[in-house]
């Protein structure tokens, strides 16, 4: 080290000690920053660590390279290679004990002086020290010294000849005879022993990399290359070696030594150090001259087996341990990804840990995993079923649970789907009730030729198009003023009715059939569900104040009822239509303090001027259906469409599913659904909903198709293959265009024609064969020859019967049992009769036979065929997660 280029070496045994060598050797101990007082002489390396200088050794001038003796004892013995080629053993911070004394000060002198470029201790046979020297004529450039050798045999001769050597040395400490001499007539720039065999030495020679074998020194394996500096073996992968030349690093595989397996991107400045991280596989750190960053190459990814020439992917990144320019660095031998860096000047040191890249992966079942260094973190969603978790579950979890509970599949009682979804989402509840009413009304219209007869025909699809469109077509609205039921007092509240309004009320669920507006049934059902306030409000809106009071009273007296309802009932009973009464004045102001929105709107209704019901209509916590029904009853033809439009837009913007009532399953409805999916990601509800009630053109909407495909993909990702199949069946029923066409045909080996039913049933074939083999019933599947050419079908490799023969059920214990089994078996295992074959070896047979064969075997049942058919099927070994 000529003063300007420092280097660092970690102690092979003390994880807290390292040596810095520049013009002298300095031994440091690294430790945590002193708790209270930093002792004088400690240098802070990072926020947590500091170094203490333990010893300095400046005995050896003209240092070129240093290597730390790998044995425990003596622990701090260093070999120093000098500019004149001599290798000196020296020590640091040691009381010169006996073991040390023998070695320290020993010199190994080459025959011809030239620079010593590199040193390497043998990792196993620790007495061997390899030194790489510059070229000197025909002399050897790699000398392997045995440090335990006593003295040179020809000392007497040498001593006589040493005339210019002016260093006064105890001649017994000088060794001039190396154990091995290698690399004649060449220069050696870098050296390392190979881990795979301690007799092998890899040397970066002048223009070639050579592997010397100490067992046969006359032979060497070599490859011509310029990348001969800094050879270093990957400690985790003993066949992988890095070397460099100027700005380029070459990575070699010793098993395929002809050329580098890869070269890293070239740097503009020459490299000075390349080092594999000892604590992490495949991480290489490189340093260039005059740089303040260390470049890291992460070679984690093994090359893909396809194609020999594909280069492994490398992730390259840079770290900047300190501000100043870096002189050298050294990985900590055991601490993960840690290194000490020394600056190019002034010996400023930094303790630095490279932060590991985080790799992160979502599972399809909402758990999240990430890996950092040697840690693997799993973040799963709280599955606390019992305690009401404060955090709402992720939509994927919800959808998964819902898929398991067959959400969306109840086509008879459509409203029940919200219960399958968990029954706690008001929007879903509203949605499924809407759909339920829509389907009910449309069903009614189709079969019952009742009052709606005249609505039929042109307005048939109107029910799907939502209240917004129904109201728009409204005509012949009649206005009436009715009495409060049970009193003859005339109200000044005008009420409107028409066929369309009546239909709208039905869609809102208030009435079940028109034209009479009779909400009694609805009230009863609300009472059953203990929705007292809502029932009371609806009764009131139907001008039945007495019923409303009765309902409230009932609610108060029920078990666990709210006694306050009685108070409300009392207040209600005091209703007066006197414009300036105290009652009216107090109610209109105090109602705002009522917590229940239905109670609130009841008083709003009673205290409003006719036609000005903003207090009711814009009370957002009241269900949309109730507000719409109210509007249909009390808003004039002029006001109603305006209100409905406004509300519709509001719903669409918010993606509120209650708005489906207004939009129906039209393009508007898809718009609304779109903002719902944007908000929640719930493609499941969107898929089922659009499938449920929609006429064809809505299903053709690309957005709808996208939701459906995404839902199917989700089911596949969860391995819910049965659920997906069920969904496809449902989809096929509701949207016949979605049924896929047959894509696979079984064709005859001889005539090439399809042997399947669909083909032979084509008119021009003129043949009456109904089913051949494939999923055939036992009686008809006896046909074992091609319907086209009458040649036999191939045989099953296992039962050796021609295909088309049904799989024989194994003999049962008794005949009666067998018979029962047979019918069951035939129903359940029609798949067993299917044709299957391996795409690789083309052998096959009955699906059932093949499955049972591969349960116990890996190779093809055909003798002499070694095809591992089942293993070629990458998904064959996956198990559905919903096997029910």
């Amino acid at each position, binding site marked *: 080290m000529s003063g300007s280029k420092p280097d660092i070496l970690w102690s092979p045994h003390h994880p807290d000690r390292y040596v810095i060598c520049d013009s002298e050797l300095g031994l440091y101990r690294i430790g945590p920053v002193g708790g209270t007082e930093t002792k004088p002489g400690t240098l802070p390396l990072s926020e947590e660590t500091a170094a203490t200088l333990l010893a300095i050794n400046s005995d050896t001038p003209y240092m070129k390279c240093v290597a730390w003796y790998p044995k425990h004892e003596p622990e701090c013995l260093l070999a120093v290679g000098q500019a004149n080629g001599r290798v000196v053993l020296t020590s640091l911070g040691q009381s010169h004990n006996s073991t040390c004394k023998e070695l320290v000060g020993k010199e190994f002198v080459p025959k011809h002086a030239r620079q010593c470029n590199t040193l390497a201790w043998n990792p196993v046979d620790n007495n061997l020290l390899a030194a790489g020297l510059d070229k000197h*004529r025909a002399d050897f450039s790699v000398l392997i010294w045995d440090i335990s050798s006593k003295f040179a045999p020809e000392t007497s001769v040498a001593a006589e000849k040493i005339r210019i050597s002016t260093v006064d040395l105890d001649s017994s400490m000088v060794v001039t005879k190396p154990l091995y001499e290698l690399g004649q007539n060449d220069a050696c720039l870098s050296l390392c022993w190979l881990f795979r065999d301690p007799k092998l030495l890899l040397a970066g020679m002048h223009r070639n990399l050579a592997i010397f074998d100490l067992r046969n020194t006359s032979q060497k394996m070599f490859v011509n290359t310029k990348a001969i500096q800094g050879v270093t073996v990957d400690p985790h992968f003993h066949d992988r070696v890095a070397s460099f030349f100027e700005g380029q690093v070459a990575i070699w595989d010793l098993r395929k030594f002809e050329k580098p397996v890869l070269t890293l991107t070239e740097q503009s400045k020459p490299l000075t150090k390349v080092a594999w991280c000892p604590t992490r596989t495949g991480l290489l750190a490189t340093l260039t001259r005059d740089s303040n960053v260390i470049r890291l190459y992460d070679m984690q990814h093994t090359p893909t087996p396809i194609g020999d020439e594909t280069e492994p992917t490398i992730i390259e990144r840079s770290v900047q341990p300190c501000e100043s320019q870096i002189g050298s660095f050294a990985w900590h031998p055991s601490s993960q990804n840690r290194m000490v860096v020394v600056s190019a000047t002034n010996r400023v040191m930094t303790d630095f840990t490279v932060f590991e890249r985080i790799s992160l992966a979502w599972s399809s079942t909402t758990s999240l995993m990430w890996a950092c260094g040697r840690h693997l973190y799993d973040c799963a969603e709280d599955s606390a079923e019992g305690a009401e978790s404060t955090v709402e579950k992720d939509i994927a979890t919800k959808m998964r649970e819902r898929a398991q509970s067959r959400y969306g599949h109840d086509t008879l009682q459509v409203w029940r789907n919200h219960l399958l979804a968990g029954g706690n989402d008001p929007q879903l509840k509203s949605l499924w009730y809407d759909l339920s009413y829509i389907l009910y009304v449309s069903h009614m219209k189709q079969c019952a030729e009742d009052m709606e007869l005249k609505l039929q025909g042109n307005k048939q699809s109107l029910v799907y198009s939502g209240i917004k469109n129904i109201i728009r077509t409204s005509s012949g609205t009649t206005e009436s003023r009715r009495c409060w039921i049970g009193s003859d007092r005339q109200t000044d509240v005008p009420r409107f009715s028409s066929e369309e309004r009546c239909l709208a009320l039905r869609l809102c669920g208030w009435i079940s059939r028109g034209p009479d507006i009779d909400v009694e049934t609805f009230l009863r059902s609300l009472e059953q569900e203990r929705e007292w306030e809502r029932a009371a409000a609806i009764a009131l809106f139907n001008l039945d104040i007495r019923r409303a009071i009765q309902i409230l009273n009932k609610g108060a007296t029920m078990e666990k009822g709210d006694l306050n309802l009685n108070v409300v009932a009392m207040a209600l009973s005091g209703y007066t239509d006197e414009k300036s009464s105290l009652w009216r004045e107090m109610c209109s102001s105090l109602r705002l303090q009522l917590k229940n929105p239905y109670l609130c709107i009841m008083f709003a209704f009673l205290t409003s001027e006719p036609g000005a019901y903003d207090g009711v209509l814009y009370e957002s916590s009241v269900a949309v259906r109730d507000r719409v029904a109210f509007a249909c009853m009390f808003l004039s033809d002029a006001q109603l469409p305006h209100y409905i439009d406004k509300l519709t837009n509001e719903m669409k913007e918010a993606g509120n599913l209650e708005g489906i009532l207004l939009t129906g399953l039209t393009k508007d409805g898809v718009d609304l659904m779109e903002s719902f999916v944007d908000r929640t990601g719930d493609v499941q509800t969107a898929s089922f909903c659009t499938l449920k009630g929609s006429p064809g053109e809505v299903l053709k909407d690309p957005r709808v198709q996208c939701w459906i495909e995404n839902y199917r993909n989700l089911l596949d990702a969860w391995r819910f293959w049965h659920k997906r199949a069920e969904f496809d069946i449902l989809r096929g029923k509701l949207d016949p265009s979605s049924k896929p066409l047959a894509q696979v045909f079984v064709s005859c080996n001889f005539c090439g024609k399809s042997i399947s039913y669909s083909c032979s049933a084509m008119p021009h074939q003129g043949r009456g064969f109904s089913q051949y083999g494939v999923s055939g019933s036992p009686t008809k599947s006896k046909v074992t020859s091609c319907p086209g050419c009458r040649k036999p079908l191939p045989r099953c490799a296992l039962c050796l019967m021609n295909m088309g023969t049904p799989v024989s059920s194994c003999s049962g214990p008794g005949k009666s049992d067998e018979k029962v089994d047979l019918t069951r078996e035939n129903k359940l295992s029609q798949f067993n009769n299917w044709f299957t074959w391996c795409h690789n070896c083309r052998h096959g047979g009955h699906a059932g036979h093949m499955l049972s064969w591969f349960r116990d075997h890996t190779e093809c049942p055909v003798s002499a065929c070694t095809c591992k058919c089942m293993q070629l099927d990458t998904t064959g070994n996956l198990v559905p997660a919903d096997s029910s």
Partner: protein
Amino acid sequence: MELHILEHSLKVASIEKEGIQICTHGLMKLAFLASKTRCKFFSLTETPEDYTIIVDEEGFKELPQSDLISVADATWLALNVVSGGGNASSSQPIGVTKIAKSVIAPLADHNISVFMLSTYQTDFILVRERDLPMVMHTLSSEFTLLRVVNGETVAAHDLGVTNGFVKPKLVPRPIIHPLSSPSNMFCVTSLDPDTLPSVATLLMDVMFYSGGSKELGTSSEDSSHIRFFSFSLIEGYISLVMDEQTAQRFPNNVLFTSASGELWKMVRIGGQPLGFDECGIVAQISEPLATADIPAYYISTFKFDHALVPEENIQSVIKALRTESAAQ
């Protein structure tokens, strides 16, 4: 064995003793500030008569034009023998002896003039660029010929010229030039380029200033001291040839000294300037040495040639060479 044809185009020049002042700037730059020039091959040899400079074209630009500088008109190429290294005979002779029979003699047989430069690290055989086809033809049977192009070693192809070459006449080569052997002893050494700055002033003193005071006459008398110093910086490697007294002026451990610390004595060839056209001079000297298996360095300068042989062998060398000479 491989023969590398290096890519340097070399000029050989002589600077008169009194002309050295005008050249010192350029020479110092070439010797000590190698990073400031693009010169890759530089050699300076001081003899009692003159300074001989061997330098590549990039380096040649650093020298001024003057009447005191004479330049040999040819452009020279350097050849370098690289043995495969496989054979582990550790007692291989060094210097020209090794290549005397394989390179030097065949070239002499073909009437190709060579200019030798031995350094601490290796031996360079300089041939004229125009002789290259002939050289390649002559040596292709014995060597793998490799040519260095932009730092890459590539196979050099025989140019295919075979016609018109004279059949070599294998005649004995008697020594025709007078020989002399100065009394002082020399060492061939090197130093770490990193330590060059620390000894730069000393080297400058040796190169440019110490000559006058120590001058002991320029005649080639036997047993007289001779002023001889050679410095070369070739592809980053430094080589020094100096007499024992000069070597002792250097600090400890700076110069590379071999474990045995050999010293060399010089045999100086030529009574009057040898010129560049005569062939076979190196062969005349090196062949007898090779036969006797005596290692030798050989340094040609503008006017005379110099062989360095181990001091303990000097008597036998003189004897052997005299025999050759007498056989004439």
